[in-house]
């Protein structure tokens, strides 16, 4: 043999390193082109330092007030409708981005009070992702599939998600849904979970085995539009920059009594609830 094993390995090693280096240069060139394209955002894009919501309970009166917000969100995001499944399975497999529940379940760590104002006790509260400033879901995700954007929105990359559901265990607000079954599938009677007539072709449907949740309508913010729920809520859901003292959300928070869900956990939720009081406060 003209070369021994050590020499052979050296040559292989050096040429491999050179190959990788070459590829890196090539990729670098290609990437720079992409980045240039990304540096000119849509001028209509709404920007903020920290997006947040105010939910004004005084403005939510009828069942319809709630339902139109839920429908607006779930329709444009192609959230599968599992209501045709048997109740027991529906509860387990349900996917929801925004929904309602009573005071006790929305604020389970609020002091128990049997003498509480009956009206408040029976009110239905909106629940959706809190887009926490210190999100536990982001901390635990092993692949950065869920991450916090610079504008405070907690986002979800459904193409990277491995479906480990650590984020579901970590979220103290139950904001996250998992696709236990194929959202593009059908129930036993052949009724599709996403009605083809209503499907929004502008927004992707999901695949089986990934986690999803409210995204604060980032796809709408990019076009200069408010989140869908806020848009149709007649002022019950107000969206704005929590870091801007002149924003509408900050003005409401400064003027009225608001509470947040489980603030003691330190995740710093970005949804403020205006409860009761109103003119009487």
């Amino acid at each position, binding site marked *: 043999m003209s070369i021994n094993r050590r020499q052979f390995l050296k040559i292989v090693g050096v040429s491999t390193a050179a190959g990788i280096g070459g590829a890196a240069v090539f990729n670098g060139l290609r990437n720079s082109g992409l980045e240039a394209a990304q540096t000119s955002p849509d001028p209509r894009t709404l920007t903020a330092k920290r997006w947040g919501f105010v939910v004004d309970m005084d403005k939510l009166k009828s069942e319809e007030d709630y339902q139109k917000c839920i429908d607006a969100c779930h329709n444009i995001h192609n959230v599968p409708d599992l209501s045709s499944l048997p109740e027991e399975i529906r509860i387990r497999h349900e996917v929801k981005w925004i929904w309602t529940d009573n005071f006790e379940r929305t604020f389970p760590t609020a002091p128990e009070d049997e003498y509480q104002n009956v009206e408040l006790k029976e009110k239905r509260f909106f629940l959706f992702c809190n887009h926490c400033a210190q999100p536990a879901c982001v901390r635990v995700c092993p*692949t950065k599939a869920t991450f916090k954007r610079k504008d405070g929105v907690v986002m979800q990359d459904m193409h990277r998600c491995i479906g480990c559901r650590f984020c579901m265990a970590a979220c103290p607000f139950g904001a996250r849904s998992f696709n236990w079954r194929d959202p593009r599938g059908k129930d036993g009677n052949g009724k599709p979970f996403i009605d083809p007539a209503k499907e929004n072709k502008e927004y992707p449907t999901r695949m089986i085995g990934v986690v999803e949740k409210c995204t604060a309508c980032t796809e709408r913010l990019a076009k200069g539009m408010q989140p869908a729920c806020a848009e149709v809520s007649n002022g019950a859901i107000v969206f704005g920059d929590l870091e801007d003292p002149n924003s509408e959300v900050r003005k409401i928070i400064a003027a009225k009594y608001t509470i947040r869900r489980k603030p003691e956990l330190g995740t710093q939720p970005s949804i403020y609830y205006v409860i009761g009081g109103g003119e009487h406060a």
Partner: protein
Amino acid sequence: MLDKALIGGRRYWTWIFILLAIIGVAVLTYLKQFNEGLGITGLSRDVSWGLYIGQFTFLVGVAASAVMLVIPYYLHDFKKFGKIVILGEFLAIAAVTMCILFIFVDMGQPMRIMNVVLHPTPNSVMFWDSVVLAGYLGLNLVIGWTTLGADRKGVKPPQWVKPLIYLSVPWAVSIHTVTAFLYAGIPGRHFWLTAVMAARFLASAFSGGPALLIILALLVRKYTKFDPGYEPIQALGKIVTYAMFANVFLLGLEFFTAFYSNIPGHMHPFHYLYAGIEGHNKLVPLMWTSSIFAIAALVLLVVPSLRKNEKVLAFACVILFISLWIDKGFGLVIGGFVPNMFEGITEYWPTLPEAIITLGVWAIGTLVLTVLYKVAVSVREAA
């Protein structure tokens, strides 16, 4: 050395084929889960981890328990463990294999498993858990194989393996500590948010793992010509006893803090597990079985005259293992999810496909263990 696993009697091959048959059925069931989604399990939006993750957690403990043989033998020169330390190391390999498989079958998108490596995320405990588990598997493979290989040739193990053995000691502690951190660092899940979680994990691991080893050592003696010896098994029995007392003590601490503080969120999971809440009581019989078995095992183990009888010892180890399997492989995970984040209750119970897949993973682990033990025993028999 693997060739030794290919030579065996009728009983050996029958056992192998039984395991392969179970694995075959489980693989077919898994394909169904792969196609239809995790919806075929009993899991839900509220109880999003169940039997799979419970088994994973429990088996990390079994894997870590090899250190209970390694420390006395390599650090304290307790020679009596010389013959059986390999059984512990090979058990660790089988256990970690099962851990990895349980994580795999629990994933919604298993084909993306390499994303954990492609997008390493140091702030995620799960990332670290995969690192330490893979490392521990590697360590035990290298150590076990090298020492056994040296044994076969009748020579001392090479010097370079010593540092690896020492490294395996803190590494074993790390795998179970990190696994406990998966749970103990989550805000809002009262049942898991406890500083003694990792300590409890280690205590239960160091009693459950050696208990399984005692059972395996007795089986090895019964079915092969290799006798692990009376004294090493007795020494293991003492380890099981002390560790189990520590475990029960730590569980007692949890009860005290929850009930004396009288904080509702801390008491609810215990209420659910041991008494049921508003008629939701699926886990109550299991949890009481676990408690009664734990106490019975402790009584049998702590009395020296009883423990010295190997039949009693074996029985105590079996019920102790079942007790810990229920407590950690099931109750621990479910108690974190019930009540849910809204203080509501959605119960969980595994489905048949889920149970078959679980059994299949255990069968794969048992197959790995059988093959490794066959090799180890053949080497020992020849010695």
